[in-house]
């Protein structure tokens, strides 16, 4: 049982929770993730990246977006409630060294897992540029945290409601055109974003890492649900990743595999919104009757 110490709603669909998990807080390194299961009998095991940790306090910070039934259920938990199972830290830590100039690209909630990597890269003496992108202003997170570690922070939104109206690939391309080009790009975000980041940096031969978040059950190498094709070989994200050479990842295959249960997920998402609407209507109705 892992108690929720704090909870914050970052936007309509994005939540931040601080969870008591002392061993994970002590062992975790940048780039690693956990598997979370709200209810051990019928709940789903979902991988979530670790956004931050406090070894002293024995807590980890998780940031997630409500996309399916399980993330919606997780979002229902409040401060003081407990998550029945949290396993981690899983996956290999990011390889941190002084590369020179590192560019981090965080799309949507991908900014959360990028943050500990950004911190570690900065600490290792790298010059750090961070590009944060989101669909709209509301969904852009971690701006203040990133501003504190980055030498240069570039903000973009798809709709231009904040920062520059652009996709993350546009400033990324501009950075690659500089001389010298970045020594390393770390891209974390929706798979489609990472795919296009890889395509952007490829012509410049800029080494690019992507952190993959695939379907997973155990997270320890047993199920193989997370397998991806990298450089023509099958790799398991949980034991071989989660970070891979973005230029070698078969993105189309990964995107298709992610859609394995998409229909079911979409149904659940819609169901939740429908239920929430009904509930709101019922509350309003009751309030009206009560003369409020």
């Amino acid at each position, binding site marked *: 049982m892992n108690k929720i110490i704090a909870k914050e709603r970052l936007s309509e669909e994005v939540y931040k929770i601080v969870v008591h998990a002392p*061993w*994970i807080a002590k*062992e975790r390194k940048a780039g690693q993730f956990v598997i979370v*299961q709200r*209810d*051990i*009998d*019928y*709940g*789903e*095991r979902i991988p979530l990246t670790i956004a931050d940790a406090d070894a002293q306090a024995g807590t980890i910070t998780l940031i997630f977006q409500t996309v399916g*039934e*399980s993330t919606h*259920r997780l979002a229902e938990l409040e401060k003081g409630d407990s998550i*029945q*199972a*949290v*396993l*981690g*830290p*899983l996956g290999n830590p990011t390889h941190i060294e002084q590369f020179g100039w590192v560019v981090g690209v965080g799309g949507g909630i991908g900014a959360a897992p990028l943050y500990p990597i950004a911190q570690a890269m900065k600490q290792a003496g790298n010059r750090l540029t961070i590009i944060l992108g989101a669909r709209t202003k509301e969904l852009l997170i971690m701006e203040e945290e990133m501003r504190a570690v980055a030498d240069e922070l570039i903000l973009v939104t798809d709709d231009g409601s904040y920062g520059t109206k652009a996709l993350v690939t546009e400033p990324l391309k501009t950075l690659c055109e500089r001389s010298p080009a970045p020594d390393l790009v770390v891209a974390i975000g929706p798979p489609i974003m990472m795919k296009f980041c890889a395509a952007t940096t490829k012509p410049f031969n800029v080494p690019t890492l992507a952190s993959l978040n695939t379907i997973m*059950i*155990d997270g*320890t*190498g*047993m*199920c*193989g*649900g997370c*397998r*991806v*094709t990298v450089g023509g070989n*099958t790799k*398991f994200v949980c*034991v071989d990743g989660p970070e891979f050479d973005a230029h070698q990842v*078969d993105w*189309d*295959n990964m995107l*298709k*595999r992610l*859609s*394995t*249960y998409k229909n*079911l*997920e979409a149904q659940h998402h819609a169901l939740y919104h429908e239920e929430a609407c009904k509930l709101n209507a019922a509350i309003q109705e009751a309030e009206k009757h009560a003369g409020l």
Partner: protein
Amino acid sequence: MNSYYENKLTTNEEKALLDELLAKENLTPKDRMAIPVQEMPVQDPDARIHTMSEVALGYTKTQAQLEALRCLQCKTAPCIKGCPVNINIPAFIAKIAHDDIQGAAAIIRETNLLPAICGRVCPQEKQCQEPCTLGKSLKDVGKAVQIGRLERYVADRERAQGIIALPDIAPPTGKKVAIVGSGPAGLTVAADVRRNGHEVVVFEAFQKGGGVMVYGIPEFRLPKAIVQEEISKLEKMGVRFEYNTLIGKTRPLMALFDEDGFDAVFLGVGAGLPKFMNIPGENLVGVFSANEYLTRANLMRAWDTGRAATPLFPSKRVAVLGGGNVAMDAARMAKRLGAEEVHVVYRRTRDEMPARAEEVAHAFEEGILFDFLSNPIEILGNEAGMVTGLRLLRYSLGEPDASGRRSPVPIPGSEHDEIFDTVIVALGNESNPLLARTTPELAVDKHGHIIVDEEQRTSIEGVWAGGDIVLGAATVILAMGEGRRAAASINRFLAEH
């Protein structure tokens, strides 16, 4: 295989036969040999494919006594040597004949802590029943004394009576033992070292204990309540379970000694990465490892679609690749989850299948189709990346290979396609690399299996290992056998240090 279903007596005939036999002063071997093999009642195949509940229902008291009277009580008792934990089989069977369940249970418990489980999942026809003198005399291994069914009967009767005797536990020694993994090997070690008075903590990565017995073996073959009872029994003995803890990640192995004060560690982490065939199309949508497919259905209870959050892939035509127990489990599970047609694709024939004979027989009864002498060379898919079928080659059987089984030889020009929407790969596992990667001191062989000596000791002093992480993919009982050996060695080590 037919022997399972021959000589079926009615309940009254069974009773009359038993009375007649018990009335005799001394049964001659001839009398015993004349008793028909007792078939174990099972759920009707048409009904059971719509439920997860256990297929085999267990012997009645009369059936068990009749089966027990079949045992010749031969002096050589080759069955004992055939059992990986050397249960005194003739002795416990003799107790059943006189309906002394407590006596039978006590004899089994001397060497086997999980009889309800072993009675259900051991490949008896390849172990204790294989050398059985009765089977040899009747020239049919299928007519050997049905030791597994009797073992299960004893465990189930004892449980039903609610008198589960806990073993005696020695006074506290002040020594601490960590068990990594709560599968059959780990649970065996936990019980054996706890009995010697040591403090025992079991670390399990999953949210529930039992390892392969809960994530892999389905409810219809091994009810989870039985596994849970064994775990509860250990808890009553004072064993502590720490779930959601992956040693090597959540806690480094060496920290168990340096920071947590453990004196000995047993590694029973089980098999790891599922094997694939390395043929084109294996990462298409609709291709699953049997591990994933079964874990979703079993541990995550995805079959209970009304309550479980874990989704299942909707399948109509399923191909299961492989011929072992896991392949049978996956095929029969797919059937229960609503697949219209389930094929087991196996490159040899029924005779060479490594699966337990009873599971194969049950699969046939349930309408699983077997495509023998057939093996895929490619998984076919469409533009959406979904499985559409298999490209297969036909085989014939050639000369026996190193395993003694006739090796399959592809027939040139036999390439053909079959339509499937789901492919489940059940070809075994590679070893899990996590512990070795985070613990460089731990010696592993080129396959990643932990290297142990004859006492299951690893290259690190104070660390033992056993089960699939040492053996590769094996069975519950072999893992338990290794666990027993390791526990004995741990107990000796702790007594000396």
